[in-house]
């Protein structure tokens, strides 16, 4: 357990020293979101309608941006091999890296989401559910993304490959995340969608360490 804390602490320190990276994801999130009104016109009622969907899709793309770095730096400087040799199970190490990734990407995105909600004139009654759904959903994005990042280590054009592998697997999280917010905005219960998101999170918490460790082992073989 202390090993896990050490890994998270190390990755967080590294991220804080290069805090530009976390800002970049947030900047991308807000900027891309702000492009939509230019694309479809500034009609407030239309923007209001698509707000949850746009926020989710843009968050998904912002997470995608930072995935390639998840293991690449450690792979290139050899610390990933040390991690493999250490007594800490590789599965646990992966969970630590994913947690650090979520803290530096997912959490800032959640913090920036209200800004986009305001820009899109979203009904503030749905904001709480939107944030709750993102709190459950963005860790899923980090978890699934970690598998893609581990699989493409050392591949030609790895960065281009990750979206192709990961985006189809993101669709359930997207559906339930938007579903929860839309239900809350329509005055329905968001509970079923939130429960399904939580279930998906639990499933990925099991699959990611196993699949990620298998992928990392074959990358370091």
């Amino acid at each position, binding site marked *: 357990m202390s090993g896990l804390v050490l890994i998270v602490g190390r990755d967080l320190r590294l991220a804080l020293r290069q805090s530009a990276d976390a800002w970049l994801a947030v900047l991308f999130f807000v900027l891309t979101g702000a492009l939509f009104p230019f694309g479809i016109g500034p009609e407030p009622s239309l923007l209001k309608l698509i707000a949850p969907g746009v926020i989710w899709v843009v968050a998904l793309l912002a997470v995608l941006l930072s995935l390639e770095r998840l293991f690449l730096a450690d792979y290139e400087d050899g610390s990933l091999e040390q991690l493999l040799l250490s007594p800490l199970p590789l599965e646990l190490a992966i969970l630590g890296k994913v947690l650090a990734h979520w803290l530096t990407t997912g959490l800032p995105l959640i913090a920036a989401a209200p800004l986009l909600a305001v820009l899109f004139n979203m009904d503030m009654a749905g904001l709480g559910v939107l944030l709750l759904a993102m709190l459950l959903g963005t860790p899923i994005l980090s978890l699934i993304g970690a598998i893609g990042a581990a699989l493409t280590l*050392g*591949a*030609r054009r790895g960065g281009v*490959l990750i979206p192709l592998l990961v*985006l189809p*697997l993101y*669709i*359930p999280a997207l*559906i339930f995340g938007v579903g929860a917010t839309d239900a809350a905005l329509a005055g329905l219960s968001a509970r079923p969608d939130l429960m399904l998101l939580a279930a998906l999170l639990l499933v990925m918490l099991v699959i990611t360490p196993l699949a990620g460790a*298998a992928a990392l082992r074959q990358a370091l073989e």
Partner: protein
Amino acid sequence: MHRFANPARFTRIADRVLPFVAVAALASLGIGFYLALFVAPGDYQQGESVRIMYVHVPSAWMAMFIYVAIAVASAVALVWRHPLADLAAKASAPIGAGFAFLTLATGSLWGRPMWGTWWEWDGRLTSMLILFFLYLGHIALMHAFEDQQRGYRAAAVLALVGVINIPIIKFSVDWWSTLHQPASVLRLDGPTIHASMLWPLLITALGFKLYYLVLVLLRIKSELIAARLRALDLAKLSAT
């Protein structure tokens, strides 16, 4: 099972089996399409365009079947390091992608007169599109590495992750939107499709499956021959 791991023995058996499978595939496809196009009745609502079903439904079945086959081959390859399982997964993926594409194309052609649109974001159509993307990701990852062995391993892990996720994706997409008719052949209370349409459908489905078998055997054989050629080239290089 390890007895069949030997490539030479595999090639011998494949050579013996191939002619029979090929003839059976041709025969069942011929009979199936004859029944489907000339004998089976048109639908009372959909008219003659219902005959698209005899290509559409078997390809959809094959697209799903082949993904599961790839996942099984991948599990075998990861656990027992079975070289032929790697080759089977590699050989199957493009065929599966082809069937998924065929399903989408025929579905689109069928949807135009029936639903009045080329593409509808319907649950089952959409999950087939996602399956098509999963195939493309698998193929891309397979060819992304200098070292083919790494490509096999990475693609195998991806196939297993994919096969766990497919039911989740399918369920979530169905939840999200559905316009498609519900399943009418594989149901607990027996098929709701009439026998005059069911039989041609089953025979063409058998033909599709045999056709897949022919293709996969041929592709594995050609992979083995290519590997042998590479080895011979290397031997020639090191000899000079």
